[in-house]
């Protein structure tokens, strides 16, 4: 930690070194785009057969995903180029705006699988809770940075309120899976923001109790709190899997698919579990299964998970190198968000986490999720590239 700071303070360097362009960490966009492109191929691999069977365009999902990725990359460039400190100035406005939108979606949103979480636009749907994650990260970072690295009980409660208000709105949709991402963001950022260890401990215990309650709501209260899926479902066909009321089934099939992939995989477009649509939500929540089955451990899971690990590492580094606490907090928020989603999603397909429908960043089919992930990386690039600018 310390050696880097001494470099930062070394004024003997040439003035051009302050130019943000010179300090872009190219690994970040390279990893994000690389994973996204691979995800696009897996989108095709996991949907073409059913689309063709239905007499539709087999490239339907792949084509859409390509458009989402392009828009995402564009959004990432924008997010990386505007100085992030300007974003900080607008944090309150952004926050108010997202609250309005989250309220609005409860009234005029489109209901998909029992959750009113989408705005219907021509040809695709917008999920405000996805973008809300970024706004909460920026707002919380802005608030905590003003507290100067220490959070007393008052500060802590204020910080929690910032996250809990949108969480309540998302809970009303209800979209518990996404809500838990907000919890992860809050915990990660509070840690960095300087919350007292005992407060964090209490929060963690409360959080764990809450999560356990949510996951077991059905056994405890007789009504499930988790929606069957919160992902963007375009193919309603054969969607009746949910009617089987057998989540264990999905889990089994997903693990069978991964296991059958083995060391080297079954080959591109050759996964039987994938092709036969044995695994549900193949192009969204269970996209990793397709990669794991068709490319195996060596060419699928290992490189992909390593890429994610490397991405997390670079985000952490960007946070450490940030010239101010706000930047560090933004990176910590992005890190917590992506890390939770990756762990939750992959853990779910591998059978070590329960099923909640949240997308795998950069891989799962869906415009809101892809764009959000890219903008998050854009913010991190931004923080890192401005570490020498005054």
């Amino acid at each position, binding site marked *: *930690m310390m050696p880097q700071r001494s470099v930062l303070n070394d004024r003997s360097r040439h003035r051009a070194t302050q130019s943000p362009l010179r300090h872009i960490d190219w690994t970040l966009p390279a990893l994000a785009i690389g994973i996204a492109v691979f995800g696009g191929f897996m989108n095709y691999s996991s949907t073409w057969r059913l689309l063709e069977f239905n007499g539709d365009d087999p490239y339907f999902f792949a084509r859409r995903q390509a458009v989402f990725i392009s828009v995402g990359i564009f959004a990432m460039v924008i997010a990386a180029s505007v100085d992030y400190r300007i974003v900080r100035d607008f944090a309150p406005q952004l926050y108010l705006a997202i609250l309005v939108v989250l309220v609005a979606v409860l009234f005029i949103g489109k209901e998909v699988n029992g959750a009113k979480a989408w705005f219907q636009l021509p040809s695709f749907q917008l999920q405000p809770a996805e973008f809300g994650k970024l706004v909460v990260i920026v707002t919380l970072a802005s608030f905590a940075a003003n507290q100067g690295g220490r959070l007393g009980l008052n500060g802590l409660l204020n910080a929690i309120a910032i996250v809990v208000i949108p969480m309540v709105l998302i809970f009303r949709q209800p979209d518990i899976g996404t809500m838990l991402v907000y919890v992860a963001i809050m915990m990660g950022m509070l*840690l960095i923001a*300087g919350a007292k260890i005992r407060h964090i401990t209490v929060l963690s215990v409360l959080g764990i109790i809450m999560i356990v309650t949510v996951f077991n709501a059905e056994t405890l209260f007789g009504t499930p709190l988790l929606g069957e899926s919160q992902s963007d479902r375009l193919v309603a*066909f054969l969607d009746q899997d949910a*009617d089987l009321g057998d989540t264990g089934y999905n889990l089994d099939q997903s693990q069978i698919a991964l296991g059958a992939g083995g060391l080297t995989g079954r080959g591109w477009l050759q996964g039987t579990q994938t092709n036969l*649509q044995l695994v549900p939500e193949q192009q969204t929540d269970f996209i990793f299964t397709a990669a794991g089955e068709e490319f195996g451990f060596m060419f699928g899971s290992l490189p992909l998970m390593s890429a994610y690990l490397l991405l997390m590492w670079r985000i952490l580094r960007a946070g450490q190198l940030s010239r101010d606490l706000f930047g560090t907090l933004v990176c910590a928020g992005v890190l917590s968000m992506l*890390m939770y989603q990756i762990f939750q999603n*992959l853990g779910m397909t591998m059978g070590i986490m329960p099923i909640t429908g949240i997308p795998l960043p950069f891989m799962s089919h869906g415009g809101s999720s892809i764009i959000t992930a890219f903008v998050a990386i854009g913010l991190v690039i931004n923080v890192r590239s401005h570490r020498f600018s005054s």
Partner: protein
Amino acid sequence: MSEEANIGVRMAFLGVVVIGLFAALFARIWFLQVLATEEFRVQADTNQVRLVTTSPIRGRILDRNGVILADNEYVGVLTVDPNEFADDEQRDFVLSEIERLTGESRDDLLVRLEDAGADPFAARVVVAGLDEQMLEIVTERALPGVTAEVSAIRIYPQGATAAHIVGYVGAQPKGWGARHPNDRYLPSDPVGRSGIEALFEQQLRGLPGARKIEVDRTNRIVRELGEDPSLAGHDVHLTIDLELQAAVEFFLDEGLRGRRGVQSEDDDRFFYPAYGGSAIVLDIRNGDVLAMASNPGFDPNWFIEGISREQFDSTFNDPLRPGALNNRAVQGLYAPGSVFKLVTSIAGTRAGVIGGRTQFEDEGFFEVPRDCGSTCRFRNAGNAVYGNIDLSLAITQSSDAYFYSIGYDLWNIPEPDERQWAIQDAAKDLGFGQQTGVQLPFEKAGRVPDAEIKRNLFEARPDVYLAEENSIFWVPGDNINLSVGQGFLTVTPLQLVNAYATWANGGTMFQPNIADRIESRRVGTVGDVVLEIGPRVVRQLDFSDVPRSVINEGLEGVTIARNTRSGLTEGTAFTAFRGWDNRGYGVVGKTGTAEADGINRALGRKKEDTAVFVGWAPRDDPRYAVVVVLEEAGFGGEAAAPVARNIIDALRKLEQNWEDPEDLPLVPVDQPGSSCPQIPITLLRDPTYIFRVPEGCPYGIPTPVITATTVDPEAENQ
């Protein structure tokens, strides 16, 4: 300093969490994909999910009063998949077991099992019509490759009646699946092969569903994972009236049978073969086809239940009753003969070569003025001499000489003047030489010959045409032949009746409708009209430059004896309509006795004349146009007119039960600048979508391309 260190430690802690979580993921994936992969792979291979296509229920076909012409019936069927047998011994065992249980003869079973035309990978229906108890018994025996199940089969409750209109379903023609890659046809799915069944295949069929089932290694169903139900096909409601249809078919058949007992005029050693024919009743007020008969016919149920060799031969291989599958009303091409004189009358008066009351001296023949030998003399039928006549009498008595002279005079109009093609123009105006657009497959366009068409014909088949020492150019004889409906002219019965209907209603030409509307049979929308086909006006003809009253006077005289200067003049159909209630329900029309080109191959002699009658009734309030065409049956007035009389008689009686059709708004099709949308292709893909025809937009069904599989009567006649 301490604050920064604090953040550093906390960031480091975050890093540790990241590494910890990833470690867990890596460990788990290592276990799944490396350590335990064998076990999972076995599971993946044994448990397979199958998407099984389920066939939809086919829509029905009904007449205008809701009488069902095509329906579905649920019967127990026993299918055998020959690929399931280990060896011939096992097959023999299975067959003898089926024989023992069902009582079907072993030879029959074998024939059905080895059907050469069927898809080799598909299971075959070997026994149909099993009751529930029998199904259970067969199922309990668990014979290899044998499935006993309840299945929907097509039935045609009216049998042979309206068979040419309804058509039939049958096994898919070769390459069907490849031509319909997105429609999920199973190789064993029957498809519409002719008639309404073929033209409305897409609408009638519905949308197949799918069952998602998990099966184990031995194809045993482990569990049902979900079902996307199939969507029932739509009902097609026709414009025909089944009672009238049955009557028309009966009288057509009766007329043909009668002629087979009459000696030929040309050679009294022979009887008229009267091979077949057609009759149509059209509502001239809106273009609805009320009845359309074609003879010989067939029973579409034969294609479903199977047909015996004997039945097949007597129906489809009888050289004396050729083309039983063809709908002669739209596929039969004939020289119309004298009924075409209506067109020549319009052309001649329009071009100004004759006037309605111009006197003409009929000497029994017409001679082309320039000296060109004896072949330049064109004689009246039967060498009759009619003396001094005008247009009206020329029509009533069917003087050929009168119309020959029109044909020649028009030909004689020098080159740049378009009036020399007046007959052709009038014919095309009235719809000849083009499909009428009725909703039936394989419709023929016919031919209105001119110089270019003749040259093309000759250049394509010089061996056939030049052998008759004919000129490749459009010579006077060509126009003279055309003027009396002979020569290279060919028309379909439907074109004829539609042309007369257009004349009778004052010039509104409709595309005839045989399909009236399509109704949904899907849950939730049962009975909703998916597609309404209103009257479809092709064009409005202007007859103001034609002496309509003179021509109609001539046509009215055909069925009666009219007063003229030379006393009572009998029309050509006078005998046939003797005693008819002319005051109450006058029949206006024209007879035709058309020479048919070529040789009757089955009999080895020249073809007999085609007998034609076409007209409308009642005279004072024209409502229905009728055509009767009898092949190789002799005189129109003698053979066709009596059939027409019987039909109109039946029509008059049945009409009492009908409601007056409401005055429907008439909107021309192909109206320039009309904003009527195309029928969306998605019509059937979306179960909840119903296409509502915007007000004022008449819709027909676009004719899909169907490979003709039925016999072409024209080719056959060559």
